[in-house]
Structures are given as structure tokens and as C-alpha cells.
């Protein structure tokens, strides 16, 4: 190895180095976001029952009612929580006021300890509710009233504020990890908070989680390695048909669910490799066409009941997810333990996020970025471009197959309509919307898209009707919104491209790349010359 060379300073007039890109910068933004979300939940939680009391025939109770009723062991806990909450909120207000006057905050440590104690008490209450699930805890806790929603909302909100406050310095230093942790905590509390909105939790939330998985997987292909894949739904289909074949009536096989999802991932990644091996030498646009074709072929094969294996347009029946004797049920079936599907999905999403995050930061992740930026230089620097791209392709496919296998069990009947081109387009829109190459971004994008598909679009018809009646323009009610879904997508994408071209939560490098443009030249082109 070479000897040390005399160190040379930058020549005069050299540009200052850019800010480090390693994400170690301190940012209080996430802290304030956490506090805002937490306070919002607390406020809604305490006032919601008073609001809905009228429309729910007086069965709504606020946590405040529980405090005033002096019944049950939970009341004591509520007192602890309430006192800590008041101190905490007062402390935050005091902080803000003192900051206005440019003074140092007072009693930071004591307040943090108190907040932590309050948060722990809150968690204790939550655990007690979960364990006992009975009335003495809050005087009157009725599963069919809004009270428990309000309680959960309050508990979640307060825990957020309290933990956020107690760990403020840590959050400011690690905004990324804190954001992820909070996102998962709120996500996990979701079915409890919105217990009354059964349809949303029952389908929308799970749908969102499936979309998060799909977006995470496609992000590996499109975001990390920079390969355009327009047939991503094909791997989703392969995963779902794996479940229906190995755990369903068709072949009389009933393999355990947790084996199936990994098999689905494995088989999809094999297909990814089979498709990728001959096509990955192609340049971006050509690759997109080939994947588009693949995405069309797979559902068509399924529709035509190839080898009698797919059951044609009617599809195949798949077993619901089961763990021993605990049956998670299926969509529309009784009992469908929708919450558990959702929680299971959340856990899987967390696992996939951690795994992809690790890969992104590894040798392989660097190689992907290098290929995306300059394939020729990457090859000359010692990266096997073909196998590295193939890995991106099959890792992306395996995540899709994973999600598909889960989806199959959740749906109960796997039919070709679930995997049409529209799915590929929607997932790609999700990735673009959220921020190509950014794990947090695509997660947010998937939640937004799922919200649009499952809440805005189904309700839009009704809103239009209401708008028509109120404004007197009854024609508005005849406007069939669901026909214009793709126009809506188009508008969203155009809007994003104009306003935030790198997505809602862009990855740092992508942001710069998109504004200044990168080079595109495939290795195969150079070699073929």
C-alpha cells in the first residue's frame, strides 16, 4: 500500500463541503411532531365522548367521567395519569413561553422524570385494561360505546407526549428511529382507537399494511437499484396463489400459515430471478416493457386456469391464518379477528423495515446506489452489476410474495382480479408519492394511498350527494366518483411532481439527484458498442 502523501489543503476558493448525508444531524422537528400528535389524541379523546354522547343515546363516557365517578381500581390510575398529564402540559407551555423570552427551560429533569412516571402508569393502565377487560376499571367500560375508543386515544396520546418529553434529547439526536418507533406505536394502537369504525379497521387498515409491504418491496427495485418494474403485482399474485395452493381446498394441502408466507416469499423471489436473469441487461425503458408484459401474463395465466392449477376466474379458496387453534378468520367470516391480522401485519412490516434498512446500509445497498448512479463506473469499481441487480429484483419480488401470501390467507378466495395492472400502477404511485428510495417515505405514501382508496373514494359518492343537496345542484349526486379514480391518481401524481418532485418524505440523495439530473448509460450499451 502507498506511503502517506503530504496532506494538502483544499485549493483557495474551494467549495465548502456539503452537510454530511449520514442522518446524524440533530432535528427537533420530530419531537414537536410527536408532541403535537400526542396532544391531539389526548384532546380528541377527552372531548369526543361528550360530543358523541348525544348521538349514542348517552352511553359515551369520557375519562373525565370515570374520574368523577370514583369507582373501580382504574380510577386511581386515572388520577396518576391525569396529574402527570397536567404537569406535563403545564411544563410544555412553560417551556414555550420561556423560549419566547429566550430563557432556559426550568426543572427539565424533574419534569422528564414525572412525565416518564406518568407514561409508565399509562402503560400500566393499558395493560390492565387488556388483561382484565372489565368494568370496574373505569366504572363503565362498554365495548359498544365510544368510551373505550376515547380511553385508548387518551392513553396513546398521553404516552406519546410523556415519552416524547422524557426522551426529548434522545429524540432530537435520533429523529429517524424515534419517528419509526412512534409510527409503529400509533399504528399498533390504531384498531383500539378506531374500534367503532369497524369497516375501516377491518379492511382499510389491513389493506394499508399490505400496501406498505408492497411499497417497501418495490422501493428496493425502483428506489434502491433504480430499475423500473411495471409488473410488480405479478409477484404479489404468485405469493397469493402459493397460499391458495399449499393451504386450501384445491390440493388438500394445509400447511401452517407461518411456513406459507415464507414459502410465498421464496417462490416469488425465484420467479423474480427467472424474469430478471435474461432481462436485466436491458436498459431502464426496455426493462419496464418486459416487466409490464410479465405483469399482464401472470393474471392472464391465472384467468385461463393454466394446467388447471389456478381455478380460472373464480380463483382458489385459501385457508385463513391459523396459529394452533387460534383462527384469525377471513374477510366477512365470523369470527374474524381483524385486529390480530392487523397486528400481525404490523409486526411483519416492522421486520421487513428493519431488514431492508439493514440491507440498504450494507455493502449490497451501496452497490445498488452505485449502479443507479453510474453503472459503468460501478462495474469498473468491482461490482457484479448483473447479480447485484438480480438481487434487487428478487428481494423486491420476495417482499411482494410475502405480502401476497398474507393477502391470500386474509382474502379467503384468491382470484385474478386482485392482481391486475392497476395494482402495479397503484404501488408504483405509492412509491413515487412517498419518496423514491426512502423507506419512511414509501410507508407514508402507502398509508396515504390506502386512505384515499378505502376512505375518500368510497365516501366521495356520498359527499357529492350531500354537496348536491346542500347547494341545490342535484346533478352532483349523479357524478360517479369511482369511475374517475385514475384521474384522481393522475392528479395526485402530477401535483406531487410539481410540488415535491422527490416525494412526501424524500431520501436525501434522491432529492438532489432529481433536481440536478443524473447520468444514464447502461453497461450493456457500452459493452455492445
Amino acid at each position, binding site marked *: 500500500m502507498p506511503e502517506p502523501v503530504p496532506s494538502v489543503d483544499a485549493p483557495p476558493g*474551494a467549495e465548502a*463541503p456539503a452537510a454530511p*448525508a449520514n442522518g446524524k444531524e440533530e432535528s427537533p422537528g420530530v419531537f414537536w411532531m410527536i408532541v403535537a400528535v400526542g396532544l391531539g389524541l389526548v384532546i380528541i379523546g377527552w372531548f369526543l365522548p361528550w360530543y358523541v354522547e348525544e348521538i349514542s343515546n348517552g352511553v359515551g363516557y369520557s375519562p373525565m367521567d370515570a374520574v368523577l365517578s370514583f369507582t373501580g381500581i382504574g380510577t386511581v390510575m386515572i388520577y396518576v395519569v391525569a396529574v402527570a398529564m397536567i404537569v406535563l402540559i403545564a411544563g410544555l407551555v412553560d417551556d414555550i413561553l420561556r423560549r419566547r423570552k429566550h430563557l432556559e427551560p426550568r426543572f427539565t429533569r424533574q419534569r422528564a422524570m414525572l412525565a416518564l412516571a406518568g407514561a409508565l402508569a399509562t402503560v400500566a393502565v393499558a395493560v390492565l385494561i387488556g388483561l382484565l377487560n372489565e368494568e370496574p376499571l373505569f366504572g363503565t367500560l362498554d365495548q359498544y360505546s365510544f368510551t373505550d375508543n376515547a380511553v385508548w386515544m387518551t392513553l396513546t396520546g398521553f404516552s406519546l407526549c410523556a415519552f416524547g418529553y422524557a426522551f426529548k434529547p434522545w429524540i432530537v439526536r435520533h429523529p429517524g428511529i424515534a419517528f419509526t418507533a412512534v409510527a409503529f406505536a400509533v399504528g399498533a394502537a390504531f384498531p383500539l382507537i378506531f374500534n367503532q369504525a369497524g369497516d375501516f379497521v377491518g379492511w382499510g387498515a389491513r389493506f394499508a399494511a399490505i400496501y406498505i409491504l408492497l411499497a417497501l418491496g418495490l422501493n428496493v427495485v425502483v428506489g434502491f437499484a433504480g430499475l423500473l418494474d411495471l409488473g410488480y403485482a405479478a409477484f404479489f399474485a404468485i405469493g397469493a396463489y402459493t397460499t391458495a395452493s399449499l393451504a386450501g381446498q384445491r390440493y388438500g394441502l394445509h400447511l401452517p400459515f407461518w411456513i406459507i408466507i415464507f414459502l410465498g416469499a421464496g417462490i416469488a423471489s425465484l420467479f423474480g430471478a427467472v424474469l430478471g436473469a435474461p432481462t436485466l441487461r436491458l436498459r431502464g425503458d426496455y426493462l419496464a416493457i418486459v416487466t409490464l408484459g410479465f405483469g399482464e401474463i401472470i393474471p392472464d395465466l391465472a384467468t385461463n386456469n393454466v394446467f388447471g392449477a389456478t381455478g380460472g376466474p373464480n380463483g382458489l379458496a385459501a385457508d385463513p391464518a391459523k396459529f394452533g387453534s387460534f383462527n384469525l378468520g377471513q374477510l366477512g367470516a365470523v369470527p374474524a379477528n381483524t385486529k390480530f391480522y392487523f397486528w400481525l401485519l404490523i409486526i411483519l412490516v416492522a421486520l421487513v423495515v428493519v431488514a431492508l434498512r439493514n440491507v440498504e446500509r450494507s455493502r*449490497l445497498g451501496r452497490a445498488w446506489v452505485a449502479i443507479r448512479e453510474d453503472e459503468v463506473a460501478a462495474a469498473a469499481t468491482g461490482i457484479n452489476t448483473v447479480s447485484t441487480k438480480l438481487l434487487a429484483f428478487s428481494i423486491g419480488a420476495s417482499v411482494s410474495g410475502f405480502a401476497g401470501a398474507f393477502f391470500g390467507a386474509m382474502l379467503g378466495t384468491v382470484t385474478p382480479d386482485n392482481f391486475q395492472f392497476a395494482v402495479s400502477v397503484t404501488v408504483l404511485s405509492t412509491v413515487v408519492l412517498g419518496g423514491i428510495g426512502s423507506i419512511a417515505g414509501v410507508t407514508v405514501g402507502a398509508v396515504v394511498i390506502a386512505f384515499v382508496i378505502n376512505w375518500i373514494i368510497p365516501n366521495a359518492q356520498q359527499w357529492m350527494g350531500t354537496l348536491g343537496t346542500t347547494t341545490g345542484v342535484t346533478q352532483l349526486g349523479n357524478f360517479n366518483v369511482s369511475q374517475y379514480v385514475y384521474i384522481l391518481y393522475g392528479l395526485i401524481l402530477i401535483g406531487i411532481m410539481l410540488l415535491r418532485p422527490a416525494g412526501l418524505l424524500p431520501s436525501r*440523495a434522491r432529492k438532489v439527484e432529481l433536481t440536478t439530473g443524473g447520468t444514464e448509460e447502461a*453497461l450493456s450499451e457500452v459493452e455492445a458498442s
Partner: protein
Amino acid sequence: MAAILEVDRITKVFGGLHAVQDVSFEVGETEIVSMIGPNGAGKTTAFNCITGLYPLTSGDIRFRGQSIKGKPPHKITRLGITRTFQNIRLFSFMTAVDNVMVGEHCRMHAKVWDAVIRTPSERREEREVEKRALDILRRLGIERYADAYARNLPYGLQRRLEIARALASRPTLLLLDEPAAGLNQREKRELMEVIATLRKGGLTIFLIEHDMRVVMEISDRIVVLDHGEKIAEGAPQDVRKNPRVIEAYLGSGASEEMRSA
């Protein structure tokens, strides 16, 4: 001196154009050999053939006695030949240290599963590689730019970062494609120092260069290409006097300037 690289009658044809025709030469161990020639003489094409970016039309290239003909670029890099590019090809939106760490890619062993679950050996390897990358940056005097995006480095330091990236793959033969292009006098001086130290560390260097001062000063031998053919080879003082070189490469009017250089 044992030949580390033997280029044996290589030809590269693009359509009807003979970009490199029947060129042979050798590079000895720890030698500094320059390749010169007018624009379009086929120098970079020859480089691309050696590094595996272009498949050869005919001929053979041997590295330490082993034929590397038809091997893909990453395998050639693994064998110990790395290069820099004429128009800098850094990974612009990666940090300087990440660029160098990409250079170490072919010497790393972590597999996908190691990365997914972050095994202790993967972590250790990542730590070691980062340490080595910083070490290389320090040796080349650009450590303070470690966390800056490659594109934000001043031009001269980008050239140096490209050398750092090439060194990270632990080559025995380093190909530099016009390393002095666009550098000012002081930067050229520093570049020559860097090259000299690298050679002292046991590295063989083969470079394309237009700057005659640089070429004459650092080269042990010079290979001259014109219209895809080798027209001369030898020590700097011999090549300088060679009439074919003066005529073909510099044009007859420039011979005076050449002597005074």
C-alpha cells in the same frame, strides 16, 4: 523486470472503424508507463478493452500471465486492475467515504443474509472497511471531505477521490485515464507526488495523459498510439526524439516546443 500486463496484438473494431488495431505492449511490475497520442487515437478504447468494458475483436490480454480476455469488468477488478475515468465518473450523490467503500466492494465477503440480520462478522467488516476507507482518504489528503457528497468536492479533489476509490479495491495495476486533465499547475504537481508515492508502495501505474510535462517527468516508458496503431514505444527521451511521433502526434510545427519541454 517481469511483465505484469501483456497486451498481445489487440484489435477493437466498431462497425467499420478500427479504433485499436494490432496493438501490443507490455507493462512491467512497479513501472510507470504512459500512453499518449492525438485525440481519437484509440487510447481510451485500449483502456476499456483492458478493463473489460469492451469485448476484444481479436488479440489477447494477459495479467500476471493469466488471460483476462472476455472476463467481465468486476472480475478484472478483483484480479487487481482498477481504473479512473477521463470524464470523472464518481457516484456523485454518495459521500466521499461511501464512494471509497464501494471500491472495497469486491474485497468484502458479507452475503445478503449477513446484511439482513447484521451478523457480528458483517458489522465488523463494515467497521473495518469504513476505517480503511477513511485511511485511504487521509493518505490522499481529502479526509476532511469524507462526509461531503462527491459532486460537491472541488474538481481537483474529485480526481483524487476517484484515485482513492480505485485504490480501495487493492489493485496491483492502476490505470489512470488523463488524471491531470483540468488540473492547475499546483494540482498537477501534487498529482505527480501522489503517483510517485503509489509506485513507491509497489503499485504499477499505466496512464493516458496529454500533458507532456507530466508524461515526460514521471514515465519510465511511453507507448504512442495514432489512428489505432502503435507508432512508437520507449523511454521518454527516445520517444521525444522519434520523428514519427513528432509528426503524427504533435504535427511538424510543434517539434520545437517538444524539445524545449
